[in-house]
C-alpha cells in the first residue's frame, strides 16, 4: 500500500500570484532562504528580496510531507535527524579535508536513512519536486549547478558535507534549502550520493 501511495503523482501548483514590487530596485540581500513559516501545510509564503510577498501553493512540500508521513508509518526505527546527529555535531563537521590539530572531535555523522531504499525513492522525487534537477540536470549531469554524477565534490562527498551543502547553501550559487526540514534533506542526501554510485 505504501508503494501505491508513493506512486501517486504529487499535486501540481497553479502558477503563483505575484504582486509586483517597486520598480526602483534597492540594493538587495543575497540569496536568503525562501521558505519562511507556514511550512508543512502546503501553502508557503516566499519573502522576496524586496520584502514583497510571493504566495504560491508549494505542492512539493505538501508532497514531501505526505511522503514523510508514509515513511513514518513504516516499520523502521524511525530515527529523527535530531537523534542521529545533533546540530552541534553538524556545526563541527569539517568541509575541508585538512584539519588543524588532527581529527575533528565527535563521531562521524551518519545519515539516519543509510541503506534505506524507500528514502532513496523519496529523495529522487524531492530532487525533481524542489527543482534540483533543473540546475543539476536529470541524473545529476550538471548545468547551472555542478554535476553530482561525477566524483568531483566541491564541498565534500560525505553525508554530513552534502547535508550541510543543501541545508546552508553555498556562496557560488547553491541556494539554502534549510527550511525543507532535516528528514527531507537526509533523503536528498541518499539520492544525491547514489547519482555517483556512492552507496548509502
Amino acid at each position, binding site marked *: 500500500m505504501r508503494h501505491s501511495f508513493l506512486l501517486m503523482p504529487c499535486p501540481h501548483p497553479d502558477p*503563483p500570484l505575484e504582486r509586483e514590487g517597486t*520598480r526602483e*530596485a534597492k540594493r538587495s540581500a543575497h540569496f536568503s532562504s525562501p521558505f519562511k513559516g507556514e511550512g508543512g501545510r502546503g501553502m508557503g509564503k516566499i519573502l522576496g528580496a524586496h520584502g514583497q510577498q510571493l504566495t504560491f501553493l508549494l505542492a*512539493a512540500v505538501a508532497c514531501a510531507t505526505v511522503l514523510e508521513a508514509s515513511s513514518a508509518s513504516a516499520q523502521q526505527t524511525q530515527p529523527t535527524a535530531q537523534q542521529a546527529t545533533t546540530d552541534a555535531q553538524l556545526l563541527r563537521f569539517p568541509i575541508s579535508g585538512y584539519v588543524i590539530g588532527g581529527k575533528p572531535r565527535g563521531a562521524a555523522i551518519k545519515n539516519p536513512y543509510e541503506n534505506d531504499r524507500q528514502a532513496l525513492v523519496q529523495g529522487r522525487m524531492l530532487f525533481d519536486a524542489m527543482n534540483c534537477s533543473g540546475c543539476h540536470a536529470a541524473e545529476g549531469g*550538471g548545468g*547551472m549547478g555542478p554535476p553530482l554524477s561525477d566524483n*568531483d565534490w566541491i564541498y565534500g562527498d560525505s553525508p554530513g558535507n552534502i547535508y550541510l551543502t543543501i541545508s546552508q547553501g553555498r556562496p557560488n*550559487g*547553491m541556494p539554502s534549502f534549510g527550511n525543507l526540514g532535516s528528514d527531507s534533506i537526509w533523503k536528498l542526501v541518499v539520492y544525491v550520493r547514489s547519482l555517483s554510485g556512492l552507496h548509502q
Partner: protein
Amino acid sequence: MKTFSRLIVFSAAACMLEVVYGADDLQTASQDDAQWLMPAKNYAGTRFSGLKQIDSANVGELQVAWEFSTGVLRGHESAPLVVGDTMYVITPYPNFLYALDLKEAGALKWVYKPDPTRAAQGVACCDVVNRGVAYADGRIFLNTLDNYTVAVDAKSGREIWRTKLGDISKGETMTMAPLVVKDKVLVGNSGGEMGVRGWLTALDADTGKIAWRAYSTGPDKDVLIGDDFKSPYAKGSDLGVHTWQSDQWRTGGGTVWGWLSYDPDADLVYYGTSNPGPWNAAQRPGDNAWTTALFARKPETGMAKWAYQLNPHDLYDYDGVNENVLLDLTIDGKQRKVLAHADRNGFMYIIDRLTGELVSAQPYASVNSISGIDTKTGRPVPVDAKKSEQGKMVRDICPAASGGKDWQPMAYSPQTGLLYVPHNNLCMDMEGMHVGYIAGTPFVGAKVAMKAGPGGYRGAFTAWDPVTAKKVWSIEERFPVWSGALVTAGSVAFYGTLDRWFKAVDAKSGKELWKFRTGAGVIGQPIAFQGPDGKEYVAVLAGPGGWAGAVVAGNLDTKVPYGALGFVNAMTDLGNYTSQGGTLYVFALPTTTTNQAGREPLHQSAR
C-alpha cells in the same frame, strides 16, 4: 585621408578634456571604421568594417600583434570596443572591465571590477557570460550578472552610477550588451529558464534613473502598447494576459537577453523576446504573447509600434532574441526597409521594419519541426509528428532547443550583399515534464538530449542572400559555430570555432584563406579597427563556454546526456579539443615591422 581626419577628431577630443562622442552622434561616429563603438559596429547591426588593408589577398599573412589574458576562464562571448586609442573588454562573471592602451600594444590602463554577488552564478542558465558593453559621452555602460547597469568613466575607470534592475532571488540575471540611443541606455534581463518575466528597460544615460520599462507579458499598459500600436498578425488588446491561462504570464519568460538595433530615420528600436516559461508547453495553453516576439519601439517613451510573435505557444525553446540586422534592399523591384532575423526556429525572416510585415522566410538550417511560415498569419506551420509533448520522448526534432542559430550574431556586407551566419546544425530528443514554480529555481520541465543534425556535423558558417532568400555557400564545422561573425571591405569574413580556430574566409566564395590556432575555443565576437599606427587590426576573445561550451566551462559530466539543458549530449567530445581559457587576441599584417619595436615586451598569452 582617413588617418588625417581621424587625427583632427582626436586632437579636438583631447582639447575638450573628456567627451569624445555624444550619444546623439553615435550614428555618425559609428561609421568611422577606425573605431568599433558598439558590439554590432553600428545601429543597423551589420558588423561590417570598411577597412581593407587586410584583404583576401594578404590575410594569409595575418599574425598576432599582442594578446591579453582576462584572468577569467568562463565563456567569453563579448565584443571588444575601440574608442579612440583605447580598447574596452568585458569578461564573463565577475564582469571585469579592462581598458587597454592601443598606443602601447594593449598596455593595461585600468580595470573596473563591479563585484557582482557570487550567488548570481547559480541562476545563470547557460554559463555566466556577458555579451559586451556600450559607449557614449565618455562613458562605458555595462551590465553585471547580478542585475546592475553601471556607467563607468571611460578615461579613468571610475564608477559614475549604478542602478539595480533585477533580482537574482527571482532568477533574474543580465548578460546582454546595452545599446545607447539618444540619452538612454537600453538594457534587458535574462532568465527565461527561471520563470522570469521579461523586460526591456531604458535608463537615463546621465543619471542612471529608470525612464521606462516595457514588459514582454501582461496587460498592454505594462507592455507599453498604446494607440500607435499595430500588429500585422495579432488582433485584440491585452494579449499578454489573454493568451495565457490565469496568471501564468507573471512567470512566463519573454526575457530580453539578445540584441538591440536602431533605425534613426524611423526612430525605432528593434529587439526580440525569449522563450516562454516553462519549456513544457503543456503547462501553458495559449499563444503566450509576447514571448518569442519581435518588438519595434520608440526609444523616448518605450511605446511599441509593432510586434510580431514568431513562435506562438513555443514548443521547443525557440527564443526570438537573435539579432535584427537592418537593411535597405531592393526586393522584387521594390525598395524595402527590412530587418533580417535568423530565428532559432531555423528560418531566416525578412520583415518590413516599418510595419512588421513578413517579406520572406526560408530555412537556413535543417528544420523538421515546422514545414514553413504561413505568409498570411505569419505563423510557423507545425509538423504534428515533431510536436513536443508532456510525458513522451519525441525523437529527432530539428532544430534543437538551441536553434538553427542561437545568440551568435551574423554580419552583412553591403559589397557582396550577403549575410554571414554563424550557426548550429543540431537536433534533439525532447520530453516535457511537469514542473512547479519555485522562485529562483529553474522553470523548465523538459528532458532534452541534443545531437548532431543531418550530415553529422554540428555547426556551419553560411553566406545567405537576403534578396533571393537563398544560401550561397556554407562551411561545415565540427562544433556549433558559437562565435559572432565579422566581414570587412577587404572581402574577408571572420569567425571562430570551439575547436580552437580563428578563421578568415573569402567573403565571395567562402574559401578558407587563413586560420590561427587559439589557446582555447572561440565564441567571442570578432571586430576590426585601425590602430594609432594606421594599421588595421582584427581582435577576438577566446575562451569556450556559453550554452554550447558549458560542458567544458562548467566541468559537466559527459556520461549524462541531459546536462546543460541537454546540450551536453551533443558536446561530449568538446573536452578533447579545448580546455577553459580567457585570452584576447589582436592580429595584424606583418608588413610594418616597426609597429611594436622598442616598446615593452609584448604580452604573452596565459595559455
